[in-house]
């Protein structure tokens, strides 16, 4: 949770008088608030933490960091299935109401 992930701004819009963007994190696209780095433009890279851009980053640094985070599994942790991970760690099924199907296949194997 504490790590911030670099992403590329795809589009920008005003929402509820707030500057928001669609940001691409190596294939995963999320809504991101730009209020703390208001001069971001489409195509720019930023360090993003829990849905907020915190600092502009150059493209090369951003791409290197994204590649490293993907190798470390950080992207899966940040954007992946937290209930599935918690269920595997607990040796249990996902609780009802998560909107996700029961664990199966590789997910279940990863539990053991």
């Amino acid at each position, binding site marked *: *949770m*504490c*790590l*911030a992930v670099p992403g590329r701004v795809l589009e920008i819009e005003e929402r*509820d*008088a*707030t500057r928001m963007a669609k940001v691409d994190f190596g294939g995963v696209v*999320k*809504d*991101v*608030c730009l*209020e*703390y*780095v*208001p001069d971001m433009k489409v195509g720019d890279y930023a*360090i993003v*933490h*829990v*849905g*907020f851009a*915190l*600092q502009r*980053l*150059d493209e090369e*640094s951003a791409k*290197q*960091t994204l*590649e*490293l985070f993907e190798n*470390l599994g950080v992207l899966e*942790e*940040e*954007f992946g299935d*937290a*209930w599935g*991970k*918690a*269920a595997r*760690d*607990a*040796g*249990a099924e996902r*609780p*009802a*109401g*998560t909107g996700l199907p029961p664990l199966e296949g590789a997910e279940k194997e990863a539990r053991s």
Partner: protein
Amino acid sequence: MKYLDEFSDPVLAKRLFDDIRAVTTRPWSIMEVCGGQTHSIIRHGIDQLLPEEIELIHGPGCPVCVTPLEIIDKALEIASRPDVIFCSFGDMLRVPGSGRDLFKVKSEGADVRVVYSPLDALKIAQENPDRQVVFFGIGFETTAPPNAMTVYQAKKLGIANFSLLVSHVKVPPAIDAIMNSPDCRVQAFLAAGHVCTVMGMGEYPELAERHRVPIVVTGFEPLDILEGIRRAVRQLEAGQHTVENAYPRAVQAEGSPAARAMLSDVFEVTDRAWRGIGMIPQSGWRLSPKYREYDAEYRFSVTGIQTEESTVCRSGEVLQGLIKPHECAAFGKECTPRNPLGATMVSSEGACAAYYLYRRLETPDKEASSVG
């Protein structure tokens, strides 16, 4: 055993290791404050590849790990209420309270939801005006500005059914507390890069001067960490104690002025208990009086919490750098990621989880390492 070819740029990594080796003449203990740095150090075996004289001490910089048991228990009680939708980051799901965790509470029927951003929780509040939506606001200076902005937005948009359960902590008072401890062995700090992205470096010169300790602002990637260590060792060998920025691509001296302004509007500094460590004066934030109505602790009178900490878990000593995870008798035996006794075994940024994940079950054998 770890090898240099695991680094993204093995040539540069070798050069950094060689330089560290060349300047090191005697033993030094350096604390990496941030749990993300700890994870990266253990994953890449940096501690095993360094000269024998350099000891890395793992610091308290994991927000999940230091959130006090009492707040976890309050979260569990609030989440159990039928009128509440409780929103959290995913890494809090299995942090043990006094006997249960958010995962178990959800299994028992509570409406617990994992969100990517606090703004997602605010959106859930907008979509569910007849329910109370509570967001678990934990974290260091990196996470506090997003949560502050979310409360600001809730007030601006008049969203009354949203509140924040706040347990934010600040890094510099923790560094101060560690240096003030009579058992302290830390001689230099690698400061947490992304914390400084927000806060800048202004809080550190006074700390470095008063404790005569070098502080190097450092990123998370293996080469960033090596560069941080290199600079720290050079200062130690030269008898210096200044603040250096080894992460300039992400950190500017003044940090993020907009984020800092929002922090001081929405939050006020307060004393805060750290799990496993205890009370550290002026080390946390709570909502300022102007936003107190959005404080879940005020909204839900959660009282009569009787906390019960594990009697065998030594995570407090791990968090202060006093012992390594494998020095705890429970490590890897009754305490595992499946049955964690403490938060340091749950969080991926926790030192115990990193040691367990990368099979550091015994004292590292430096002689078995190779620098290629």
